[in-house]
């Protein structure tokens, strides 16, 4: 009977030369009513008879139209809840569509679930007959195919045992074997590829290929893009019950991936944590690279590009920072694939222990960039302090237009001794401070770039532990997210008679005394580090990274506290005349301590009481983090 019919339909096939439609879906919608109060018993009908039963409507499918040609392999993809299974159930005839219609040309074998009707009490043989009958085979057909079915399932020995004695894999194999022998023209499949061991899976995939060759129509619902790309001729993307795209497999798969990115993105924006889109950031990254290439070709003087790059980097950095704040969100893992994470102090602590060995391998020159402006004694003191570090140190001086004759003489002397000195004009605004990048670029034209530390002359390192630079370099080398590293300044040393003491106090507490530091172990010693704004004190030059003074980084303190030289100098010159003299000769005319406006504005300021954190070390060099209101 069936064979005759098949022959007939084959004849029909030949008549229609053009693409013959196996499945046609016309404007199908499916709406589920979800009542607010579930009524599923006579009792609840009776009890709730006086109330109006309200419900919500849920559009599982919304106006879906597509068709599938005979012999086509269609993949349906979409997120959970997109309506894939509902669509499949409607195609299988289990659900009736709320509106629209379906035309199906041929017999359907739905694989929504394997082994429908299987009963554990019956033998494997009886279950084959039962399942095959449910799938629409006649007894005669089953008799003919029975041996093939059992052979394919590799269960010859167990076929007369009760099904309850089968393992779940055996059951699945038997069920799959029956299903593929059902011999229907159209197959509907809902993620059935994950069945059995790998050898059996290969067998199944061979079967799929043979189906394709035999010109059967297959509709497959799956989450696996690889399966779709490998087997399907066309794909269909559903999202929230709507048909987003149908057509070329690669296009639809790409759209799906993009779609899922956008979903995550949208959610993140909803949370209010992310203002920049991921794509935008990617574009930013590309632009950054382009700009970098261009700037490499340009003259050192044309730093406009670098300025732009700096801005882009800043944006990028802000983005990363925001990203950090959503680290704990659901979609973090997804985003994490695309960006690295700014490590927390704790992570540094964990990782640093394993990285100590690497520390001793780095043996290259260690250039120190000193920003200079007048003040000869000061400069001497700094060069001295670096000379006492147990490193090969190369000193580069970046002079911001010193006009003091003594200083210029000293610089000439240093130059004759082989120290590199770069002369720049006097600076007038905070932005111009970044002209240090010209010096850095000029220097690195002849040298191989690695990680370097640049310091301000206000810091004296002469008293610090000689391992400090090792630690700095280590932090910079191993944690690309660390933009700069600096020592902790000792706030206690600000002289009482310093005009702007209160202002400086507030400023410094805000910058680096208000956050609680974290303790890490390094080379067997305890070090306290803290994320905080770092103004111009320390910055770094990194490979493939344009030098800028950056204002976010790690501060390291105790036992590595550094002294702020300005304050010492202030301390020595107590009378007011000398203050003004000092002001004229200060390293930078944009700093807080020498601007007339600043003095007018802030000298009479009362100091607010604030909580500060500070670190002390006891006799055994153990770190103690303390806090205090001052």
């Amino acid at each position, binding site marked *: *009977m*069936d064979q005759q019919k098949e022959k007939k339909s084959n004849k029909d096939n030949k008549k229609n030369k053009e693409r013959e439609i196996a499945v046609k879906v016309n404007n199908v919608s499916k709406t*589920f009513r979800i009542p607010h109060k579930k009524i*599923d*018993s*006579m*009792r609840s*009908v009776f009890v709730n008879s006086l109330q109006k039963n309200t419900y919500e409507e849920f559009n599982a499918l919304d106006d879906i139209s597509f068709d599938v040609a005979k012999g086509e392999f269609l993949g349906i993809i979409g997120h959970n809840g997109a309506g894939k299974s509902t669509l499949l*159930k409607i195609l*299988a*005839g*289990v*659900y*009736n569509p709320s509106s629209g*219609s*379906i*035309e*199906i040309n*041929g*017999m*359907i074998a*739905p694989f*929504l*679930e394997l082994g*429908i*009707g299987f*009963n554990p*009490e*019956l033998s494997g043989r*009886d279950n084959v*007959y*039962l399942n095959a*009958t*449910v*799938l*629409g*085979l*006649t*007894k005669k057909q089953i008799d003919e195919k029975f041996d093939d079915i059992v052979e394919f399932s590799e269960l010859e020995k167990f076929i007369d045992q009760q099904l309850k004695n089968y393992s779940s894999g055996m059951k699945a194999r038997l069920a799959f074997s029956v299903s593929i022998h059902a011999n229907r023209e159209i197959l509907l499949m809902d993620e059935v590829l994950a069945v059995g061991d790998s050898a059996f899976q290969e067998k199944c995939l061979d079967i799929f290929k043979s189906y394709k060759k035999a010109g059967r129509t297959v509709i497959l619902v799956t989450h696996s893009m690889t399966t779709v790309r490998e087997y399907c001729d066309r794909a269909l993307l559903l999202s929230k019950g709507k048909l987003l795209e149908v057509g070329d497999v690669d296009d639809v798969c790409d759209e799906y991936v993009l779609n899922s990115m956008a979903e995550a993105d949208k959610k993140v924006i909803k949370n209010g944590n992310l203002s920049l889109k991921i794509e935008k950031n990617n574009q930013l990254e590309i632009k950054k690279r382009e700009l970098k290439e261009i700037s490499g070709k340009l003259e050192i003087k044309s730093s406009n590009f670098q300025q732009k790059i700096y801005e882009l980097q800043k944006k990028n950095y802000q983005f990363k920072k925001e990203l950090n704040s959503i680290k704990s969100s659901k979609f973090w893992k997804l985003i994490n694939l695309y960006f690295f994470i700014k490590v927390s102090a704790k992570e540094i602590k964990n990782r640093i222990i394993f990285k100590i060995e690497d520390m001793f391998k780095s043996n290259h020159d260690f250039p120190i960039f000193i920003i200079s402006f007048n003040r000869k004694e000061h400069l001497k003191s700094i060069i001295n302090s670096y000379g006492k570090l147990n490193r090969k140190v190369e000193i580069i001086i970046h002079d911001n237009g010193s006009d003091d004759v003594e200083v210029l003489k000293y610089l000439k002397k240093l130059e004759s001794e082989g120290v590199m000195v770069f002369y720049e004009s006097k600076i007038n605004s905070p932005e111009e401070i970044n002209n240090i990048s010209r010096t850095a670029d000029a220097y690195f034209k002849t040298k191989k770039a690695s990680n370097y530390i640049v310091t301000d002359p206000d810091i004296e390192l002469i008293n610090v532990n000689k391992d400090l630079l090792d630690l700095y370099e280590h932090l910079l080398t191993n944690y690309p997210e660390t933009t700069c590293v600096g020592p902790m300044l000792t706030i206690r040393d600000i002289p009482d008679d310093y005009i702007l003491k209160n202002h400086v106090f507030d400023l410094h507490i805000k910058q680096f005394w208000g956050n609680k530091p974290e303790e890490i172990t390094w080379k067997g010693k305890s070090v306290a580090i803290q994320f905080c704004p770092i103004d111009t004190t320390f910055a770094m030059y990194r490979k493939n990274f344009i030098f800028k003074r950056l204002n976010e980084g790690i501060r390291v303190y105790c036992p590595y506290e550094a002294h702020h030289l300005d304050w010492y100098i202030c301390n020595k010159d107590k009378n007011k005349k000398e203050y003004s003299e000092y002001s004229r000769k200060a390293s930078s005319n944009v700093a807080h301590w020498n601007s007339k406006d600043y003095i007018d504005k802030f000298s009479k300021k009362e100091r607010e009481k604030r909580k500060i954190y500070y670190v002390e070390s006891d006799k055994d060099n153990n770190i103690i983090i303390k806090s205090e209101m001052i």
Partner: protein
Amino acid sequence: MQKKHENYKELVWMLAKTDFKLRYQGSFLGYVWAILQPLLLFLVLNLVFSGVFGTGARGGGVPFYSLQLLVALMLFTFFSEGTNAGLNSLKSKAQLVTKIYVPRWSIIIAATIQSLMVFVANILVIIAFFAWYHFIPSVSAIIVFLFFIFMLYVVILSFSLIAGPLLLYFRDLKMIWQVALRVMFYLTPILYPLQLLPEWTHKIALLNPLAFVIHFAKESMFAGHYPDGWQYVMFAAVVSSFFVFSIWAYRKIIVNVAEKV
């Protein structure tokens, strides 16, 4: 729409056969075990009530009371098991409703046919008891009896077509039906002869097809008393209108039943 199953007959037969097989575990002892429950009920009721209604009772009593009780009890068991099987058919075969398309009525019919098969097996017990009592019913009584079985089956099927899908909407229908069956057990002339009731209630009681079948099955076999022509017409009209109603109701209820499972 789509080409669907074409061999429903085989499907129905396969489902019914499988259920029957599972019930008796394919063995004679399985059969004995399955018949034990109605048989014990019969023995107990017989012991108690044959003294009340049987020939030993004051004022004559009913001839062959035990056999009458057995026939009535078997018919009632058929009815109660058939309706229960039909009621639970879709719920117990939920996979066939939600994971594939087969006409839902084929599942319901399979369940009722399975209980018909059980009833046919139980008739063997009736025959054995008839032989024990050396009682041979007349040919016309047997024909009427077969007709009654057919009609009773139609009633069971009609009930199942409505109740099977309805159970998916109202889960407590099962409990309600158990209570209803218990009430029916006492309202139908199983334990007692219909004549025991006041004259005016007879017509009302006989409107109930179950009561009609049980009453006249007993009367025709043991008293040679058959229903009148108009009574046949009335009976057939009630059963067939219930059947037509059930098909109409089934079509209404079945549309979105898969969502309720």
